[in-house]
């Protein structure tokens, strides 16, 4: 409790405003200002191709033609998945080639400050390096942040619309940045059935244990009421069908797919429905809950899906 108070008092002006958004006061200038209205048919781009560089180039092209990251936005927080002490090939973490290409693209459009905060599951000194993401971040002059040892960066936010999760200590880096992008890896998950986009935010909070103790699926849906990334890019180049979240999986399916959307709930639903066996989709209850809570459209039929081959 003491720590929470401390971080509350140490809030900067900017955080204060964004913290306000969190509490639902200033919705209009939230970080998801360019977020498409939730009622419209969400646009999903599905890019297929073997070359990861080409996949990400196409993805950046889509982002840039569709409003980009917004004008005058200079800082970006990228949520990758680098939670596990596993190599890129094993499919437990976001693929470093995709991250590399994305960071390059961000530099090209003039984004100055890029941070990659992550509260990893295995010790960060292993996961950041073994996932290969630390090296590509360094190459592109982006800062990778180990939230596990940067406890001061968590800010307590109140989730008005949260059902199970009414309060969460969320990493300040995402609230201080102009742009938030979520780049998870899609894979099987022992606890949640599947982990794709929404579940990835568990790596941005301080106390994951609370989620497990208080109906995990509801908490995952609840976090989507607060954090709405500008873009969600799902790495489904290879997907674990079992032994998730860390593997090594008995069945690692090579799908060579990248899913891009502004709507994380729709992206989650689309990826879960089309890339994984029905059984796993059924187990990922948080998707349905998010749909019922009106956080996004989860019916694949109602989505505006654009398939692209590269």
């Amino acid at each position, binding site marked *: 409790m003491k720590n929470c108070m401390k971080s509350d008092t140490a809030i900067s002006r900017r955080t204060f405003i964004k913290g306000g958004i969190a509490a639902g006061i200033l919705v209009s200038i939230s970080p998801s200002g360019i977020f498409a209205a939730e009622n419209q048919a969400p646009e999903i781009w599905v890019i297929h191709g073997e070359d990861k560089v080409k996949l990400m180039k196409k993805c950046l092209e889509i982002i840039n033609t569709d409003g980009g990251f917004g004008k005058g936005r200079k800082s970006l927080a990228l949520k990758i998945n680098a939670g596990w002490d596993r190599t890129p090939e094993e499919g437990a973490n976001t693929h470093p080639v995709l991250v590399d290409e994305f960071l390059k693209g961000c530099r090209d459009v003039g984004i100055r400050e890029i941070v990659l905060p992550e509260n990893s599951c*295995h010790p960060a000194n292993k996961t950041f*390096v073994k996932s290969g993401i630390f090296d590509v971040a360094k190459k592109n002059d982006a800062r990778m942040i180990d939230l596990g040892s940067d406890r001061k960066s968590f800010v307590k936010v109140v989730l008005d619309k949260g059902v199970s999760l009414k309060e969460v200590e969320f990493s300040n880096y995402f609230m201080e940045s102009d742009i938030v992008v979520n780049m998870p890896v899609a894979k099987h*998950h022992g*606890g949640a059935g599947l982990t794709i986009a929404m579940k990835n935010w568990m790596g941005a909070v301080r106390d994951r244990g609370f989620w*497990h103790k208080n*109906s*995990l699926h509801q908490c995952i849906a609840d976090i989507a009421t607060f954090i709405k990334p500008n873009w969600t890019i799902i790495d489904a180049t290879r997907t674990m069908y079992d032994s998730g979240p860390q593997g090594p999986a008995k069945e690692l399916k090579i799908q060579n797919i990248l899913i891009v959307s502004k709507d994380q709930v729709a992206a989650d639903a689309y990826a879960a429905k089309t890339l994984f066996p029905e059984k796993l989709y059924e187990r990922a209850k948080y998707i349905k809950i998010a749909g019922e809570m009106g956080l996004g459209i989860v019916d694949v039929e109602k989505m505006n899906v654009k398939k692209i081959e590269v």
Partner: protein
Amino acid sequence: MKLNSKTVRWSARIFFLIAAILLLMAGPIPVWILKIFQPSESFIREFIMLPAWMAKIVPSLSPLSFLSSLETHQGSRLIVLWILPPAILATAAVFKGRIFCRWICPLGTVYSASCTKNFKKHFLKKKLSGYLFWGIIFSSAIGFPLFIFLDPLSTFSRVNLAFSGSLTLAAVIPGIIFPAFLIAGLIQPMSWCSHFCPLGHMFDLMHKTNVKYTDRFRNERREVVTAFLLSIPLALFIRKNPLVKDEDYPVLPPGAGNKDTFSSLCTRCYACVNVCPTKILTVGFPDNADVGRWFQPEMNAYRGTCQESCNNCTQVCPVGAIRKLPFEEKHSTQIGIAGVIKSKCIAWDQGEYCMVCSEFCPYVAIDSDPSESGLARPSVNPEICRGCGICQNACPVRKNGAAIVVGGIREQKRI
């Protein structure tokens, strides 16, 4: 000319002291040191200046701990290569006496440098070094070296606990020998070296002088007899302590084998604790009747996890208390078995889905034992579990400990 030789000796001493300090820093450099050099970095990559195995060089120089471990376990775990440095020092002692103490010993350097100004109060009348030395020799012979933790090179290696981020309450007590004699040296100069050091006594004893070895032994008969009469019963008592329950096993570092061998061989130099990157390896708190276990390195999974891809601690043991395990062997060695405490477990007790332990387990050792309604509940497969502690570390239950806890086993084995 005289001044000149003094300068040479002090240059050599400082050189060896710096070398010893650098060797202590083998393995991953503590984060707080790295932070000094890169204060703005938010993630500091593990940095290894010297490979972890070098942490064993300083403590394994000692001919005394070598001799003691040779006696205790007939040297079955010692690698031939490591005989060489103590053998050289022992030979040097035959011809030059305490040459090691005067030129090389890092502890000796620090003590003599610090006590240039002192009160010259001789409060210590009796030399205890002889008793300690013979105590070590006799108790080692029956398999439990008693005072081997007083070996000066182990003492020096232990100091690193304060810098490597391993300083716990339990670590303060064994770590206090060094600063205590630093202060004692200010009152009576070199009180450690002249009155306590068992290694120094060994060197003195080996020194070939006009006094015959047989005469020297006769001069020491009081020390020999007292040590014989006291150390053997004491060592026997600690080894076969009737107060210790047979099923009470600590979780030991991989390669330690079993409790008996490890507890007796370990000189408490804590080289293994210092090179542990996650700090799961810590100094055992003396909270039980098993005196032999006191202050020995043990695993505490609340502090960290035993990483799949690490065998640092197995590389550094100077006396072979921890056997060197190649990566593959370490990966398949069982050091403990996790057990679910059903009365605390979210799934077993509250009927909520959790399975965090299964999620984190790198060896897929946690099976699901579904309830009637199909809720997955964790159960450990003891055939696969290595005892790495990641489940205990990750368990969301924290009220009076986790709901899944690693327990020690009688004998470590390969799976």
